[in-house]
């Protein structure tokens, strides 16, 4: 085996971040293998979402290092320098954040055409396949406002995939959905994970995390308290804080 296969795709080392006087991340280290599925769980305000936002450079960090593939994220200080990284790392948000003035098809095509300068016809072919994949064929010319929350979130996943990323970051993507729509979104993520897409999920869906994750990280108050494969983390947690958290949510 060569080193490129063994070294993780994402590697965070001792990452610290403060917002004003409040230190959100107090030395986070984690790694994600290529093709791996990692779930980050933990109480609200523990810094889960901030970890994701640091990985794609939306939130600049104060100290530590973040490596994604060949990019050293903390050294990319302008949006222009971050473009190649954002080609590789896509993100899906809790509130979908689709562009409401553009149709579903335009939402998928905009960034590849306008940012990556790819050929519009090729992007359209790809976008049609992606819409089929998230089971939204026929909604190409609908506007986001005409779709249900679950459908919008699936469009958002397809939009992220249209960038042909190596990693997708999912930030509590089912938290704003009505319960009956959660499963349609999760099944899309499940398919992606099965196909070998590298996924990092911040989630409150513990059963889903247990099912799809290779590794689960539990964060509390800005530190990673415990991590490991879901079988050990969920079945036999060792840290009292994790036990307490699992008692509350399961």
């Amino acid at each position: 085996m060569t080193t490129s296969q063994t070294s993780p795709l994402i590697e965070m080392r001792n990452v610290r971040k403060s917002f004003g006087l409040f230190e959100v991340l107090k030395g986070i280290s984690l790694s994600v293998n290529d093709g791996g599925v990692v779930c980050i769980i933990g109480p609200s305000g523990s810094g889960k979402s901030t970890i994701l936002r640091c990985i794609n450079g939306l939130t600049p960090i104060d100290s530590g290092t973040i490596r994604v593939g060949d990019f050293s994220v903390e050294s990319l200080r302008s949006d222009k320098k971050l473009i190649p990284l954002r080609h590789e790392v896509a993100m899906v948000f809790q509130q979908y954040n689709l562009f409401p003035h553009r149709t579903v098809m335009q939402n998928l095509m905009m960034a590849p055409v306008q940012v990556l300068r790819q050929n519009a016809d090729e992007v359209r072919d790809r976008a049609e396949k992606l819409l089929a994949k998230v089971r939204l064929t026929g909604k190409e010319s609908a506007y986001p406002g005409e779709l249900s929350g679950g459908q919008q979130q699936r469009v958002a996943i397809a939009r992220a995939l249209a960038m042909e990323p190596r990693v997708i970051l999912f930030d509590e993507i089912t938290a704003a959905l009505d319960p009956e729509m959660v499963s349609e979104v999760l099944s899309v993520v499940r398919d992606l994970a099965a196909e070998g897409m590298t996924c990092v999920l911040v989630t409150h869906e513990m059963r889903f995390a247990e099912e799809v994750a290779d590794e689960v990280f539990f964060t509390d108050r800005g530190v990673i308290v415990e991590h490991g494969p879901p079988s050990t983390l969920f079945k036999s947690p060792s840290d009292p804080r994790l036990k307490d958290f699992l008692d509350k949510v399961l």
Partner: protein
Amino acid sequence: MNSELRTFLLGIVGVPLCLLGLFAAVYGDNTGAMLGLMAERTPTLLTGSPDITSLDGGFLANIAMSIIAMAIAAVGGVILGVGLIAEFSIVRHVSDVVMNVLRNSPWLVVLYAMLYLLPFEVEIFGVYVTISPFIKSVIGLSLPVAANIAEIFRGGIQAIPSAQWESARSLGYRRLQILRHIILPQALPLMIPNLMTIYAMLFIGTSLVVVTGASDILSAAKVIIATTGSETASGFYIYILFLFFLFAFPIAILTRCLERRIGSVSL
């Protein structure tokens, strides 16, 4: 019949009738003769010349000034507005000061300032260009309007949720690209009613340019009244009110229509 159409019909019939009533109250038995005088002088009031040989004065000048000043103010306002939301705090603060100074200056004062600050003529590439009262008026009017447009621009941009910026950034868009492709298309419809309101204000404000010596409708009226006698002044000014109303009122109604339509579109 929708409410705007009702308001429009009510206003477009009611207000002229009220003005006519006022006219009759002032002139009593003479009303007919005075209306005849108004009709006779209408070409002069509208174009500045009695036989419509030139179209550079009177009410047409007011309309032209408002349109040119609006165009200049739109360009200046957008530039200033981009400054107001700039990433660099120095640019932001400077733009803020400029915007506040211009927005809070009385229009009449700005017009007087133009009269005395701008030279009679300037040399551009060796060619002497006269700065006519018309040009001074247009510049003077466009300054405070530009500041208002900058504020409308800033407000419209900031009405779009920051999550839109964020998701665009995560797709690799840069700041100006986000503004152009994602934020402005959503913000522009929100700005249009405000822009139309400021245009209506600008149009009404063109009546102030008489102080610069530009040949607008009020200076045309002054010239006429000098020959027809001061007892005809009330009639001419009522007539001018009517002309301004005729132009500005439909804009106000259209603004309201647009506002309602935008309100019904969920963003």
